[in-house]
């Protein structure tokens, strides 16, 4: 049945990776991810986890080691944040292009300059097009569940893609809260042993990572795109089975009090919980508002987004990263594009909030929704607004 424990979310993430019985962890510590790899190195050193822990000299080396390890057929994990993630980015593209089912937890954090170690989604958006599957957790329990789910989906022979679980730095990674940790046997029932479809083996030589000339590269990218798109069915199927086994169900796009809502709020990550509290407060004062929150970032669940939003009068979309001088924030751009393609054109206001650790509060959400209603009523230009910026 598992046990309910009070635990820091980073430690729970490491415990989950241990229960997933990984073979190799290669990682370099960086705030706010440090506790994840610190605890994994303890699990290995203390003999609780039979795995190789490779302490490398940089994140670039961490992902390079993971590529070698996964190509050799080992279940492989790493974790990083922000600047380290940026250094790792080069190899992230390679891991995905080579279809290696590496699993990584990213403790999301802002990118410098100015130097800032706090939470936002700049690093998540930087790596948007690496071709990894990406989910986002809203609480500690989800981090744990999404880790088991990630290994299961990544290693499925219909998928074979690397997988990121995004977890907000500090606002999730450093919080102690109640989490149900399943037994290792339960996890083993959900997550079968890794059977690589192709691996480096001196007895059966293959070349992994050859040059792709102009007559191959386009087709190679097409396969990657199609496989990533098709992975959604496997992702949903694996969530269904996770729910049937553990009693906690997940969907690519979640909704909260949207049934009769006129205006919608959209969020992703740990602020979604605060947003629900804000929705409750607004509902109490008679406002017909609801929340749509994203759990699957890549592949992007366009159909589910449309289904969740269709019929709304106005939508406030919260981005945790700034697309400097783009049309709007990165997630808003994606949603606008989705709705445009389906000929649904509601009033959309984009709020850039919680940059570099700026708190996003219940009051912030209430104010956003009030402003949305006013702006929509007046028919103001849509655009984007940086919440709380001091003029």
């Amino acid at each position, binding site marked *: 049945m598992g046990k309910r424990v009070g635990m820091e979310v980073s430690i729970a993430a490491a415990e989950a990776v241990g229960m997933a019985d990984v073979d190799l962890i290669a990682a370099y510590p960086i705030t706010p991810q440090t506790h994840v790899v610190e605890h994994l190195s303890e699990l290995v050193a203390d003999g609780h986890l039979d795995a190789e822990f490779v302490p490398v000299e940089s994140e670039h080396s961490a992902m390079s080691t993971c590529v070698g390890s996964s190509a050799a057929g080992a279940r492989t994990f790493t974790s990083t944040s922000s600047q380290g993630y940026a250094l790792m980015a080069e190899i992230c593209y390679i891991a995905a*292009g*080579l*279809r*290696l089912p590496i699993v990584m937890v990213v403790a999301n954090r802002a990118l410098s300059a100015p130097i800032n170690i706090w939470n936002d989604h700049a690093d998540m958006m930087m790596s948007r097009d690496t071709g990894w599957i990406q989910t986002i957790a809203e609480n500690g329990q989800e981090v744990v569940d999404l880790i088991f789910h990630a290994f299961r989906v990544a290693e499925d022979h219909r998928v*074979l893609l690397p997988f990121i679980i995004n977890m907000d730095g500090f606002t999730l990674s450093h919080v102690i809260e109640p989490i149900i940790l399943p037994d290792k046997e339960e996890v083993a029932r959900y997550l079968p042993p890794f059977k690589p*479809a*192709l691996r480096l083996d001196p007895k059966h*030589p*293959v*070349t*992994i*990572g*050859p040059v*792709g000339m102009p*007559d*191959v590269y*386009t*087709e*190679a990218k*097409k*396969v990657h795109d*199609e496989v990533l798109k098709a992975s959604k069915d496997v992702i949903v199927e694996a969530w269904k089975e996770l729910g049937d086994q553990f009693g906690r169900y997940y969907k690519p796009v979640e909704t909260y009090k949207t049934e009769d809502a006129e205006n919608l709020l959209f969020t992703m990550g740990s602020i979604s919980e605060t947003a629900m509290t804000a929705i409750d407060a607004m509902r109490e004062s008679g406002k017909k508002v609801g929340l749509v929150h994203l759990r699957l970032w890549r592949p992007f669940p366009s159909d589910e987004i449309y289904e969740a939003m269709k019929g709304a009068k106005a939508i406030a979309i919260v981005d945790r990263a700034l697309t400097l001088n783009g049309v709007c924030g990165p997630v808003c751009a994606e949603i606008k594009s989705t709705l445009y393609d389906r000929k649904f054109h509601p009033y959309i206001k984009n709020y850039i909030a919680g940059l570099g650790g700026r708190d996003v509060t219940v009051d912030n959400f209430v104010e956003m929704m009030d402003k949305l209603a006013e702006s929509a009523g007046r028919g103001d230009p849509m655009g984007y607004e940086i919440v709380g910026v001091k003029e």
Partner: protein
Amino acid sequence: MAKETGIISWKKLDLGTAILSPGSAQSLKTGDWRSMRPVVDYDVCIRCGRCYIYCPDMVYVKVETGHYEPNYYYCKGCGICANECPVQAIKMVEEGD
């Protein structure tokens, strides 16, 4: 009618664009890059094997007599062998005529 491009459908590419049969580079003819070819004078050759060691494309093959013969299928004509031969047994000769 579409032009024949020799491009393989994306549906037929191997996982991660891997190459599943080893040694596939053996069939790659690099010899047609050559404008000069090495010619060995076996009367001068002392069978030291330096050409074999220095050749970046492993063109030289040891034959029964102990001499080393170039395989022009792979030879790009770089001239390293001629430069390294201690007895000037290898001459670079222009291709063409």
